[in-house]
Structure formats: C-alpha cells, structure tokens
C-alpha cells in the first residue's frame, strides 16, 4: 500500500498529465453555464469547485423532487380515474 502511494505521488507517470487535462476539460463541458466559449485553460481547481457545486445542486434537486412527489401522491384523490393511472403505475 505504501509503495503504491509513493509511486503515485512521486511520478504520476502511469497517468499522464495530458489525460488529466483531458478529463478536466470533459468535466468542464458538462457543467452548466460553460456552453459559451470558455478559455481552454480554465484552472483545474475552478473546474473542481464548480463540479462540487453542481453535484450538490443536483442532490438538492433530487431531494426537492422527492418531496414534491411525496406530497402529490399523498394528496391524490383515491377515486378519480386519473389517479388510478398513477396508482397502478407506482403504488
């Protein structure tokens, strides 16, 4: 384990810098708000920071949507025909 760690920190030769730069640029393309041309050499730390923000916002959206769905499903009228569609689908 220790040898692997020292190998990683010392050389990084297994994974070229180029590959990391490529990955980071791919990540940058995924982030919202960067459709408009950004400078190619956006710093890695900035991209990472925006990635973290984006992941957090996606988590929050999932949470809000589950909340919304839960409330909608609980207020669904038991007898209506439309509700039966949803019910058969989910419940």
């Amino acid at each position, binding site marked *: *384990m220790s040898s692997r760690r020292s190998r990683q920190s010392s050389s990084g030769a297994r994974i070229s810098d180029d590959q990391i730069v490529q990955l980071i640029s791919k990540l940058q393309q995924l982030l919202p708000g960067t459709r408009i041309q950004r400078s190619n050499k956006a710093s890695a730390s900035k991209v990472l920071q925006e990635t973290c923000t984006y*992941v957090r916002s996606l988590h929050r959206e999932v949470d809000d949507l589950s909340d919304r769905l839960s409330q909608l499903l609980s*207020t669904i*009228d038991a007898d209506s025909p439309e*509700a039966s569609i949803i019910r058969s689908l989910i*419940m």
Partner: protein
Amino acid sequence: MHTSSKLTKEFTKKWVKGLQICCSSKKDMDVLERKKKIKLCADIALASAKNATTSWSIALISEAKKNDENEILVDNLLGPESRFKQQKIIRQMNSCHKRVRSKKILKKSCSISQRMKKMGPPKSNLAAYIAKRLVKKRTQVLQRLVPGGESMDEFSLIKEALDYILSLRVQVDVMRNLANATEVLNQSNSSNVFD
C-alpha cells in the same frame, strides 16, 4: 447520446418497480417517510441501472445494503441475473474498508512530514504551490460528494464524477417528468370535480 436514453429507460423501469415494492407495503405513510422511500428507490434504481459497471454505483448499493430494511428492495431491483455482481459488491465493501483504514494510518504518519514541507514553500513556485493546494482541497470535497469517493485516486475520482453527473441528470429528468405529469393529472382531476 443514445446511452443516456438507455439509462433513462433502465432507471425508469427500476424506479417504478421499486416504488411499487415500497409503497404497496404500507398504505398510510406520512409525507416524510414516503419521501425517504421515493428518494431511496430512485438512488438504488440509478445505481443498479448501471449494472455494476462503475465504482460509485457499487458504493451506493453497498451503502444501501448496510441497512437491513433495504435488503429486499435492493435484491429485487438488482435482479437474479446479477447475483455474482452482488458478490462483487460485498468484496468491494470489504476492500473499501481496508483501504480507507490503511489510508488513514498513512495519512497520520505522513502528517508530520507534510507539516514540515508546508512550512517553507519555495518562493519561486508560490503560485503553483497555492494552485496545488487548492486542487487538493477541492478534490477532497469532491471525494465526499461522489459515493465511494473516499478510496479513489484523483484520476478515477474525476472519471467517476463525470459518469455520476450524467446519471444524476437522468435521475433528475425522470423524476421531474413524473412530478409534472402527476401535477397535471391532479389539476385536471380537481377541475373536473367542479364541472
């Protein structure tokens, strides 16, 4: 991106299946409990739709399995054909723990030498030094956000984060569509009542 439409279909199928399992067992759940179940189903469905091809999905499922209540749900969603993948998950769980523990021991023993290094950054490389530290800090934050990220090296972490973001997007889209559809149905239903 035909892969995302495939993922959408898989996720939707599994999520609906999971919801049927969860919500049929108890008719009267309070809103909070139902919300937790919906979210749990969504997460497990997303991870299992990946079919154990990525680290984060394996980590997510192994995390869910730790809770005994979820065992049935997870087993049902994973499906019988992926039983060997369940073995993979269990093995990954165990290896993860060992890796995290040994990493922690290493970190502690290296902290003193690291502190000495941090004392005197070479002036000529100050900008690079700061940039490096920032990247390290942000990487740590990302590790906490991506499931299973604790035991990944930088390279795999970024790859996993890429895939995780794409999958999260699919999850959000499907959930949003269902919520909108339910809302529309609810509204049309209530307007019918007043006709």
